[in-house]
């Protein structure tokens, strides 16, 4: 399968008073077209930083130090390095070909703007030219937009060619003339209603006039998903999209994401700390620990035969349906990334640590086809098997 997104040696540091927090250390990841990829790990291990680095929305004091994020929207196209694009080019990628569902729907939605305007915003940002063209065609074929129809036609003709033309910017500042985009806004709202309706919300015409505080948690999460899906992204990043929801609502949202993936979007990158969600929805999984990827492969392989001690410990620390005996826990806690442990970052908590682990950093190796592990110990296990 063709690679959709590939991160190579991504390094991100946060410069705080205590020193540089090495949140990502030469992190590599690749996501195929049409694949649901799950990224799991404890909090503070850099899951969110990873996707924020990929989209370049890291907030100060975070700095992306190096690496490459290669993104090829079409399967046969030449990959583009997202980190090398200008900010303006990046803006046209975000929300259009890659979009993101943020963690907390309460914080992701603006409390003083109506739901309709918030969803329509992404159309007004990415689809002005296309919508202007559509309205021009409608006017040419005889549709009327009131008294100002000739003015609309003239201005939208310009917008269809270049939505950022200086004339449009000038007119937007002048009283009365600034109404040139009224038909576009109307069209954007229509599209917003359509997409909200598609997500299984009853009477979307009424919902678009409401404010976020009028809606319940599950509805808000759907609205956030609607914003992310507005421009039919190739890659949808869901950052803990269901962590704050109840089991029954979580089941609704996961089913929705699954249905949407079949219809429109190509790939989903699902970030979560719930191993159950990953096991049920994803095809591939990556396990992160302290800013490094320690194991990746098919969900079935990784969950049935985990090779990295951290993955093994993580899987045994979750209560299961047929739980017998005591839960195993991982001793200690996630290390402070200002001074990350030398060698393998997991070695202070690892039950199988050897001398080599504290000095050499293990590389991510393909020990079984399609199953990559970064562990000195796994080498030996596999060596012993063969």
């Amino acid at each position, binding site marked *: 399968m063709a690679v959709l997104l590939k991160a190579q040696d991504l390094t991100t540091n946060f410069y705080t008073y205590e020193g540089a927090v090495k949140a990502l250390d030469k992190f590599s990841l690749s996501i195929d077209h049409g694949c649901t990829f799950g990224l799991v790990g404890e909090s503070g291990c850099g899951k969110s930083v990873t996707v924020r680095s990929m989209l370049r929305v890291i907030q100060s004091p975070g700095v992306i130090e190096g690496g490459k994020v290669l993104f090829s929207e079409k399967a046969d196209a030449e990959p583009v390095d997202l980190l090398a694009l200008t900010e303006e080019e990046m803006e046209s990628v975000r929300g259009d070909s890659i979009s993101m569902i943020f963690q907390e729907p309460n914080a992701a939605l603006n409390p003083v703007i109506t739901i309709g305007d918030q969803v329509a915003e992404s159309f007004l940002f990415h689809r002005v030219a296309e919508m202007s063209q559509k309205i021009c065609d409608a006017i040419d074929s005889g549709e009327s937009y009131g008294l100002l129809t000739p003015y609309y036609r003239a201005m939208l003709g310009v917008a269809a060619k270049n939505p950022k033309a200086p004339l449009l910017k000038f007119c937007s500042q002048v009283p009365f003339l600034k109404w040139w985009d009224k038909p576009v806004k109307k069209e954007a709202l229509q599209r917003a209603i359509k997409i909200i309706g598609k997500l299984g919300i009853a009477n979307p015409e009424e919902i678009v006039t409401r404010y976020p505080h009028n809606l319940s948690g599950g509805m808000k999460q759907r609205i956030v998903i609607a914003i992310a899906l507005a421009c039919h992204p190739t890659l949808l990043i869901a950052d803990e999209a269901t962590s704050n929801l109840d089991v*029954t609502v979580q089941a609704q949202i996961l089913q929705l994401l699954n249905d949407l993936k079949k219809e429109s979007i190509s790939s989903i990158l699902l970030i979560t700390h719930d191993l159950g969600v990953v096991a049920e929805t994803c095809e591939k999984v990556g396990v992160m620990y302290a800013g490094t990827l320690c194991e990746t492969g098919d969900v079935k392989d990784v969950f049935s035969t985990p090779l990295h001690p951290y993955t093994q410990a993580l899987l045994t620390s979750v209560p299961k349906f047929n739980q017998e005996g005591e839960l195993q826990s991982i001793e200690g806690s996630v290390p402070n990334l200002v001074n990350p442990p030398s060698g393998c970052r997991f070695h202070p908590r690892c039950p199988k640590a050897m001398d080599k682990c504290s000095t050499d950093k293990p590389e991510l190796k393909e020990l079984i086809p399609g199953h990559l592990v970064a562990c000195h110990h796994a080498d030996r296990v596999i060596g012993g098997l063969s």
Partner: protein
Amino acid sequence: MKKKIIELKGLEKHYPVFGGVLKRQVNSVKALDGIDLDIYRGECLGVVGESGCGKTTTGKAIINLHAPTGGEAIYYPEDGDPMDLAKMSNRQMKNAGIRSRLQMVFQDPTTSLNPRMLIKHIIAEPIKEQEKLSARELEKKIVSILEMVGLSRMHLMRYPHEFSGGQRQRIAVARAIAASPEFIVLDEPTSALDVSVQAQILNLLDKLRKELNLTYLFVTHHLLVVKYISTRIAVMYLGKCIETCPTDELFSNPLHPYTHALLSGIPNPEVAAEPNRIVLEGDVPSPLNPPSGCRFHTRCPFCIDVCSREEPVLLDVGNDHKVACHRQDVVKELVKEKFGIEGYF
């Protein structure tokens, strides 16, 4: 015969809603609307349900942190006469020495510990309330409590911000057991923690319950956690208790359709074949105007006429299993027929 420690009889907690020009009471949020529940000595009762169904309010109403507006919460002390906590004032509870018997551990350890107090003072506070000790004896006692929860003497002179989330929750547990209580309300003690740390805290709580002969009310929305730690489970929906039974019985023989929906919604960490899901439509109705009859009838896949008219009562069906549903005898066949689910193991 198991001894009761707390018995709830139609416990109610209504929060008033004021409106109009004169700010009169126009309505009330029925957070708890008549709960009947028995809690036995030495058990861990898990309370599960969606957010907004009144799980936390139950815990707080029992120990009188929020004064209940109706019903009874009867406390049976080890020795002495039963007392109705719902009718007692804070002062009366303190004078009768019950306050220290009933303790609580809150959801988020970051906000429930005072950031300006040393760990030593945080844990000393409940001890000082009930007995006079010399400084040396007090410190000895604090250290022994800290060791019980897996911390040590070197943590005494630190502030809460110097600890990790798991350690903070240990401190919150230490504070709760410092007053040597009989009954502790645990309000989602692990939901703010990571999975690896969650296992540590769950094991610690289980160990303490057996060692100190405590009784827990474990409030959570995570069913697998409740299955691991609880001996009995109560399922709540919109201010009502709809099913209570021993843990194994609930997972092997659920009777209420809502319990079926909850169980089928659990994401299972073990990779298996495509699971069959009961996906409920819509959200929990507003507790301002709860639906008539059975409160679940608006979302229930097996609703019939009688459900919207009559409210089902909590009925004992044997095996210590109580359920409030009009169609409890046929739910199992209906679920199998419509969703193809036979069991959850």
